[in-house]
């Protein structure tokens, strides 16, 4: 067993997890409400990226349309809260189920498509979403969208609204990451990865590849949909133009930059999606997207297997140096 500074690989991972959780827990106590809000968005995007990661990273199906599921989740939450006055926390399971079903149904015909063709089919979904939302304006409020109210912390907890939403999102994220971890490290997860690695061999082993691919699509959409519902609650506003194609592409960028087929990758991706546009704007008011593009190029060039893959390689390098 290789040890670095007296700890095994597993122990390092456990230590990193504990430290990460401690930082996540203390963060809203030491930063402003606005920063808490930004980190809440990081958590929400991390959930969405985890969903995309299940599909693209682990199952090998490329989607540039996950913004559509995020939108479906967001509107499910907004409509339930605004029209039916249902408590915000009930909107999450509802958004999850709606997106699970829509993802599964979209995944069925998409089975005929591979690689770039599948990517284009999902792109079609992303392109169509804003206008479909505008068309059903009696439900969605059309171009105006729906404005929501920020929930107060329950049980008289001594937290600001932003702090409460941060902890609420964090709790949801932890549960969902735990479930995804279990799923990936199970018979189902092995089947999902087997289909990506060698679809024919996978079928010969008895894996019903079409069913698993559609189910993975559904579960992936569920994650992104719950993230969308949380996003609506936290941002207190949904409008068709928040869910443009650019959102879908940001998700794919986040998933790839963070590191595909990686749990921590989804978190790094969330940080990238939230903070890199802001940092770009601070650097240049005139051409923030040029700066963003430069960031993207640098990330892809320096870390071709994403931030998570990069850190893993550094860890392996340190271990090797220690061993020799």
């Amino acid at each position, binding site marked *: 067993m290789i040890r670095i500074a007296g700890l095994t690989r597993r122990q390092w991972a456990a230590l990193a997890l504990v430290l990460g959780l401690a930082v996540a827990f203390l963060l809203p106590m030491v930063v402003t409400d606005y920063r808490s809000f930004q980190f809440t968005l990081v958590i929400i995007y991390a959930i969405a990226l985890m969903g995309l990661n299940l599909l693209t990273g682990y199952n090998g199906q490329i989607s540039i349309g996950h913004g559509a599921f995020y939108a479906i989740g967001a509107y499910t939450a907004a409509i339930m809260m605004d029209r039916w006055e249902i408590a915000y926390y009930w909107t999450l399971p509802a958004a999850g189920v709606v997106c699970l079903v829509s993802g599964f149904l979209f995944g069925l015909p998409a089975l005929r498509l591979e690689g770039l063709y599948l990517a284009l089919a999902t792109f079609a979904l992303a392109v169509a979403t804003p206008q479909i939302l505008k068309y059903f304006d009696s439900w969605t409020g059309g171009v105006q969208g729906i404005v929501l109210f920020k929930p107060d912390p329950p049980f008289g907890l001594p937290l600001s609204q932003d702090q409460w939403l941060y902890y609420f999102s964090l709790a949801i994220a932890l549960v969902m990451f735990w*479930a*995804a971890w*279990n*799923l990936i490290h*199970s*018979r*189902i*997860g*092995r*089947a999902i*990865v*087997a289909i990506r*690695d*060698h679809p*024919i*061999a*996978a*079928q*010969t*082993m*008895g*894996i*019903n*590849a079409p*069913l698993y691919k559609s*189910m993975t699509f559904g*579960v992936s959409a569920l994650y992104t949909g719950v993230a969308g519902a949380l996003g609506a609650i936290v941002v207190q506003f949904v409008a068709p133009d928040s869910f443009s194609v650019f959102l879908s592409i940001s998700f794919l960028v986040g998933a790839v930059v963070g590191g595909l*087929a990686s749990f921590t990758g989804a978190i790094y991706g969330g940080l990238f999606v939230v903070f890199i546009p802001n940092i770009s704007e601070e650097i240049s008011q005139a051409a923030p997207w040029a700066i963003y593009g430069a960031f993207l190029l640098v990330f892809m060039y320096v870390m071709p297997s994403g931030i998570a893959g990069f850190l893993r390689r550094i860890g392996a390098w340190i271990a090797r140096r220690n061993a020799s």
Partner: protein
Amino acid sequence: MPAATVSEREESQAMATPERTRTAAPLLKVEGITVRFGGIVALDGVSFDVESGLVAGLIGPNGAGKTTLFNCLSRLYKANEGDILIDGRSIVGSTPHAMPGFGIGRTFQNLALFQTMTVLENVMVGCHSRTRADFLGSALRLPWIRSEESRAREDAIEMISFLGLDDVAHVTVASLPFGTRKKVELARALAGKPRLLLLDEPAGGMNHDAVEELIALIHDIRERLGITVLVLEHHMNLVMRVSDKVIALDFGRKIADGTPDEVRSDPEVIRAYLGKDA
């Protein structure tokens, strides 16, 4: 769906066992299989039986149609004509992923492993058809899922030991040498506890010692695991030594079917092989 596969298999075994004792129906019955690829007739009305408990060999020069036949047996190709029966039940209407449910396991001529997974994980995928864990139960890590998972792990480790792969159990397969990867494929196929194991050119790329080891292994698979084996090879040597029965193909037609000695001395077989070699 996987749950259905398992119960299907139990059902087929339950139905098949008494029938087999009555009529001694062969485990595998291939009836007049014809496969065409455009103008090429890869298989032309091939028929043969493999009785339970045998090691059967399928020989033929390159391009004879052996792999095509295997791909029909695992439903990767659809036959234009003919029928394939396992224990008297036709598999021709079933999907590839239903084949382990019929008790068919296989290896591939050109390795078909899950490259990013470890040896143990690859072999555990082999247990897929015998396990039932679903999406929700797995995500929630329910108790029955955990016990099924540890049983699958034990089974996989047993197969890994059977093939002497203990040292590399936690190594990613992509980094292993060719011969070791062939063994991983075999372990993965065996983890599905098949009744009929299809081996596509298992000795391909192997040296003399490795072939000797393989011969012992095929005997072990039949004797200790009680699995019927159909070995496909274009080299006669291995097949002649391990098989109770040999079927010879040439240009998609069956040219001989009998004991190794009968087939070895069959004039058509000699001509097919000499013709190719000369």
